[in-house]
């Protein structure tokens, strides 16, 4: 009633209403600030340097998030050997490794991960080159401090916040220099801006779109390269590899490899020839082709429209696929098919079919206030569609780039395929994102790092090609011991599924490279396609403020840790197939094991699994170890068959980060204190003995005192460090409300007829 009265009053007094809203907002803000999102997962974020030349050995330093006690630094290339870096006493230097790249390793991008206390990390790009490399080791944020580069070279560095990096090189008039800054394509956050300046520092040319800058020197002498982020951000996350090389005047533009965007998982179709059958005739207004066709072309010059004329017969069905956006280009192909009507001067072209955009298999995030879809977009501005020929005759296919009206970019290429149906599918998967609290906008990398007793979910999506509508089986081979996978199916006609990975409570820490594949039958033939994994290049806790950059990664590594257990485990009380007669109710006995304190007494659970997804959400009190839920096959209209379901919800455990580290730190302090005390005692004794020492022996005793003083200082320092570490790990281990998706173990159900 008080609240009601307040409302009435506040309606009459806008200022009170405003005050109320402000207070409410502040309260919500404070609540939001007090709560973290997602339990910590290991993420490898930086490698310094970010790559090296084939045939060289060098040290790299790594850094990341939630990576304690890194035991392995893994680079997925057989030609790269990694060993721990040892200090002079033979002890491994934390987070530092020695990397040897084989002489014959081809230039390219490979991926690195770490294995640490919490398991396998997210992936980070590591580059192999065939050019000399340097790592910047001096400040170069003024022209006077410019780092001189010899041509050719690759320089590894990272930006300083609110600063410009300066490099210099000696140019020869008339020579062509190619300058490129690899950044986004190798997982950096940097949006590079390259400026070439003359010896007086005057800007000559600027490149801001991440493309290579071709520069032909007009005069001999010193030139500068200015390098900065578009908005002058900096820090270790803003790393780059600056390539400077001289090219022959007629040499083609070098290729700089980059990571692949999520949307490219559906390209190319299996079995597509590397080279197209034909090329676009850029001189022709209309190019005559015959079907089927495989044509490469480009959207150039600006507002280019490529027109292909062909004959087609009534009753034919052609599938048209166009790729350009999926090459990682910023293009938007649009296609129109028209049919010839009339003859001679009366001939007209009548619209028959328009195709645009491959839809995302799932609704993606709108970047609104609340979560409304994953931040991974499996769709594309490319084209994939069907052309059913109703009438025989001449047709024209017009192809243009909806983003190309004014852009003159000769590298904006496309590939056009017109084929008879070749049903097929492509599959991608990523760590499940879901609304963790009101307004959650996080976009985090979610490596498959399980906690003992925990279940994590991967969202699996497919792009179906040429009318393929069949069921897709998913398989994971080589999971670590104690880890099982469930939900391995994308139902016929569906685009999405959830795969659950569950770690047994007693699973032993370890990791393995898993083969994740999708299988189906195309006609009589079984086909196997890889499931490509997506991850965020960077963990972003608020995608309003920073644009997420999801990308595809190589391979799928799964780990389990025993250093921490999952906050809770919900499972059926018995590990068996639960049977129920069609139309009857199944009283499902569950058991709940909690391993932490929670904020909130109740978790609301929803249900995954075909047939049971409409099971009403139900609450389980976290203090109730033996809850139940009743599944009504009549209301749910579940036909007879075998089912696997799971329950999921959001819980807020009071998570403590590595509490064992506190115990260890306390022990370390005790040990350091004891050592310091022992040394102090020894020192005291020796000092007291000095007075009674004969003159000829005094020097030896004084020497002993000096040595003990030195040891004492070191021991005091060690004690200070241990105390400091205790504070750090204690702060880190303090209970913190952390919203997390919680998932039950899968439950098998058999519905009997």
């Amino acid at each position: 009633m008080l609240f009601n009265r307040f409302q009435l009053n506040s309606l009459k007094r806008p200022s009170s209403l405003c005050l109320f809203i402000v207070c409410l907002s502040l309260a919500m803000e404070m609540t939001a600030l007090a709560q973290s999102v997602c339990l910590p997962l290991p993420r490898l974020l930086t490698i310094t340097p970010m790559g090296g030349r084939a045939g060289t050995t060098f040290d790299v330093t790594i850094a990341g998030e939630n990576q304690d006690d890194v035991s392995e630094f893994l680079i997925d290339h057989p030609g790269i050997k990694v060993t721990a870096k040892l200090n002079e006493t033979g002890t491994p230097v934390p987070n530092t490794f020695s990397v040897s790249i084989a002489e014959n390793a081809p230039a390219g991008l490979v991926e690195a991960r770490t294995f640490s206390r919490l398991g396998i990390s997210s992936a980070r790009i590591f580059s192999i080159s065939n050019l000399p490399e340097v790592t910047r080791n001096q400040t170069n944020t003024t022209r006077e401090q410019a780092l001189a580069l010899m041509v050719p070279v690759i320089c590894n560095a990272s930006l300083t916040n609110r600063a410009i990096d300066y490099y210099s090189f000696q140019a020869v008039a008339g020579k062509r220099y190619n300058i490129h800054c690899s950044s986004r394509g190798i997982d950096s956050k940097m949006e590079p801006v390259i400026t070439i300046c003359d010896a007086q520092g005057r800007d000559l040319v600027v490149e801001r779109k991440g493309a290579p800058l071709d520069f032909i020197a007009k005069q001999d002498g010193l030139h500068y390269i200015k390098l900065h982020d578009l908005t002058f951000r900096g820090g270790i996350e803003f790393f780059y590899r600056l390539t400077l090389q001289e090219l022959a005047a007629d040499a083609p533009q070098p290729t700089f490899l980059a990571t692949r965007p999520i949307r490219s998982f559906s390209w190319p179709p299996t079995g597509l020839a590397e080279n197209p059958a034909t090329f676009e005739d850029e001189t022709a207004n209309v190019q005559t082709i015959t079907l089927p066709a495989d044509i490469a072309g480009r959207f150039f010059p600006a507002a280019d429209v490529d027109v292909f004329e062909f004959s087609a017969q009534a009753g034919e069905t052609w599938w048209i696929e166009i790729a350009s956006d999926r090459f990682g280009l910023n293009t938007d192909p649009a296609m129109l098919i028209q049919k010839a009507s009339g003859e001679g001067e009366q001939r007209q072209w009548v619209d028959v079919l328009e195709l645009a955009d491959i839809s995302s298999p799932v609704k993606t995030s709108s970047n609104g206030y609340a979560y409304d879809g994953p931040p991974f977009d499996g769709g594309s501005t490319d084209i994939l569609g069907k052309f059913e020929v109703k009438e025989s005759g001449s047709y024209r296919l017009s192809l243009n780039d909806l983003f190309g009206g004014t852009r003159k970019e000769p590298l904006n290429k496309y590939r056009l395929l017109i084929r008879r149906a070749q049903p097929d599918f492509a599959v991608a998967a990523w760590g499940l994102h879901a609304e963790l609290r009101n307004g959650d906008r996080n976009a985090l990398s979610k490596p498959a790092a399980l906690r003992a007793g925990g279940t994590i979910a991967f969202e699996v999506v497919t792009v179906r090609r040429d009318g393929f509508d069949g069921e897709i089986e998913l398989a994971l081979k080589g999971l670590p011991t104690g880890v099982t996978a469930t939900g391995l199916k994308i139902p016929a006609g569906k685009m999405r599924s959830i795969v659950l990975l569950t770690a047994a409570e007693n699973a032993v820490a370890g990791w393995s490279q898993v083969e994740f594949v999708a299988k189906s039958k195309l006609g009589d033939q079984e086909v196997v396609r890889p499931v490509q994994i997506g991850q965020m290049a960077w963990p972003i806790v608020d995608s309003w403020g920073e644009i997420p950059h999801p990308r595809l990664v190589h391979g799928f590594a799964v780990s389990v840790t025993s250093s921490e257990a999952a906050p809770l485990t919900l499972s059926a009380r018995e590990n068996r197939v639960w049977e129920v007669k069609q139309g009857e109710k199944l009283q499902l006995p569950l058991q709940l094991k909690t391993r932490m304190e929670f904020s909130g007494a109740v978790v609301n659970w929803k249900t995954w699994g075909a047939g049971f997804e409409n099971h009403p959400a139900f609450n389980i009190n976290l203090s109730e170890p033996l809850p139940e839920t009743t599944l009504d096959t009549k209301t749910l209209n579940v036909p007879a068959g075998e089912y696997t379901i799971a329950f999921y919800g959001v819980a807020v455990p009071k998570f403590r980060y590595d509490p064992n580290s506190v115990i260890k730190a306390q022990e370390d302090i005790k040990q350091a204190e004891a050592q310091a005390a022992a040394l102090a005692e020894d020192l005291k004794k020796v000092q007291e003995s000095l007075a009674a020492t004969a003159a000829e022996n005094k020097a030896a005793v004084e020497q002993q005192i000096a040595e003990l003083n030195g040891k004492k200082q070191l021991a005091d320092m060690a004690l200070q460090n241990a105390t400091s570490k205790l504070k750090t790990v204690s702060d880190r281990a303090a209970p913190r409300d952390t919203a997390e998706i919680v998932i039950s173990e899968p439950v098998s159900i058999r519905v009997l007829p």
Partner: protein
Amino acid sequence: MGRWNPSRIPRAIGCLIAILTLSLALLANETPSINTTENNTSGTDTTVSESPDNTSNAPPNPQRPDTQRPDTQRPVSFINEVVPILTKAGCNAGTCHAKAGNGQNGFALSLLGFEPKEDYTHIALEGRGRRIFVSSPDHSLLLMKASNRLPHRGGLRLAPDSEDYKLIAQWIAQGLKYDGETASKLVSLEVQPQRGILPRNSRQQLKTIATYSDQQVRDVTNIALYESNDSSMATVDHNGLVQTQDIPGKVSIMVRFQGRVVVFDASVPQGSPVDNLPPSKNFIDDAVFANLKELGIPPSTICDDSTFIRRVSLDIAGRLPTAEEVSQFQQDTSSTRRDQVVERLLTSSEYADFFANKWTAMLKNRRDDASDMISNFAFYSWVRDNLLSNKPYDDMVRELLAATGTVIANPPVAWYKRVKDPKQQLEDVAQLFLGVRMQCAQCHHHPFERWSQDDYYSMAAFFSQVGRKPTATRGEDMIFHKRGVAGYANAKTGVVQRPTPLGSTSVTITADEDPRLRLADWMSAPENPFFARSLVNRYWKHFFKRGLIEPEDDIRDSNPPSNPQLLMALEKHFIQSDFNLKELVRVITTSQTYQLSTVPNEFNANDMQNYSHYYPRRLQAEVLLDSLDDLLGLRTDFPNLPSGTRAIALPDNSYNNASPFLRVFGRPENESVCECERIQSSSLAQSLHLMNSGDVKGKLANGSNRVNQWLQTGKASQEIIVELYRIAFAREPNEKELTTALAYVNEPKLDANGTPIDPPRILRENFHDLIWALVNSKEFLFNH
């Protein structure tokens, strides 16, 4: 505060203010009905010019029959007589019965009579005809109110004995006939004379002739509306009597009647001897000097080298010349040294920074949210890089107008983030790139122009196929051409208008073509009457303070240029140079006209539009802040930007929040397409800010500033003073200045206890005072 400009404020308010202004102008005039001088109507016997020049006494054409004679039998036309009388009387002004909403006290008329059918309904039919009394017209509410016989807030608008009153009464008595379908159409309007040379302080009676579709010719002098484009040069009364003032130059009188506009152009010569013109250097000088000769206004002399290098550095690069540049320039004896300075400035990065700052403000590069930062930086950089590489202006505009894709891949897409509605897009494009203000035409026929609502929506149709797709970036869309036949429905008639360039016929654009590309084609065509003209006029104003057409973004028939030959020549040169912006800057700044002294001679002090001398203007906010920093060898620190970033290189408006200096000196918030959003006038707050503000005092006291550093190294006071003058004024102090300054900096001082202050501190504080005095001088604050 700067002058009023409708584009700085929302459309509805803008239109309202425009209408209010117009209405107030109408109401300020004595109403024709009150003035019973009926012999003005013929126009033949009303010329009261004191000028001996026959031109100004030219009689109206006696051959034209005057059909407007008292004739009680003649049917009175509602369309051609009643409505114009109401317009002339101000009844359908925006402040009166055409006020948005429901008119005035329930009686609504269309603005300036543009919708006569609606007016007829309101007058004759609404309220069961309560406003009209056919059997006794004098007792009609309409006339009772207009003649103030019943209380009327608008006062007396039609005197009962006036011809206009009688005509309306006659129309009522004749049975309130609506002749919307049958009335002859106005086919032309003519003012006599069309142009003339009027001595200062003289008068000229204008005669306005309307010709109708039925060949009828009417003298509408006393029911047409008149307005001067510069009342300080010439005024005009409600009957078309022009009175020139004491200022020489070009002035125009706009004459409006029934939606048409004609203009009387007058030259008001000063008649002084123009004997010693500087040698002409290019076509600009030819045109300016010819005009000055015609007007008899002798130009000032050419400015000295110091003034030139400071002026041109500020105008091209937005910064003071460095002391080294000044020294080198002073030592250069070549005859082309001024041209070389221009070349050097045009290749400088600061040129691109300064003009990008100018353009991005008008292109609304505004930060409303932290997530705007990347797109704002990208857009600013795109403009800046294009200026640096001197991309042809038409290409730049084309890339902006027809931008597609994402901001990161194609930064001009950012403009579509700010300007989302096709109507707003057309208005901004028209005003910014064509110099045409279309805002009014959305709701009614433009009162000063020929643009109708159909014209408005036909232009909006060019933007009707702009498609949007969501992106992962908050608030940002991918822009693409949405296939389809372009068209935009006229909000009033519902008729879909096809894309039609202004003043042209509609163009056929297929569903596949992006109409914006066709708009860009039309704009950059050499024969386009607006595109090049608008740009050269805008740039001319940048360098001369006043546009050849003023305001610079209000090009219309009724607002002619002060020097049409010069405008035409500039336009031609710009087009022939392939829309080369640097060449335009080059040709302007290397002209003798640009290099004239600010100091007027005894004959040209009054001239404010013919460029007989350079018109000084206050440095704009960013330039002033940079200049202060240059003088002190400091840089203001701006959030998120590298140390050393100049204020002229700030990418968006967000930096105003943290800089009271920029706000006080009028840096715009990038909300408007109009340059007038930048406040260039002076204010008390500015004076106080320079005198007392913490940031200025902080800079003076900053131990790192160059004077404090020099003092610490023991540099001689005289050398410091000379150096400061070089930086601040691009010259060395004269003997008197040097003596005074030296005496001041060495002056001893006592503290509050009467104890002498130690000499180093005294010297430092006295130098701070000296710098403060230099900064507060007009010579520093103004470009001159």
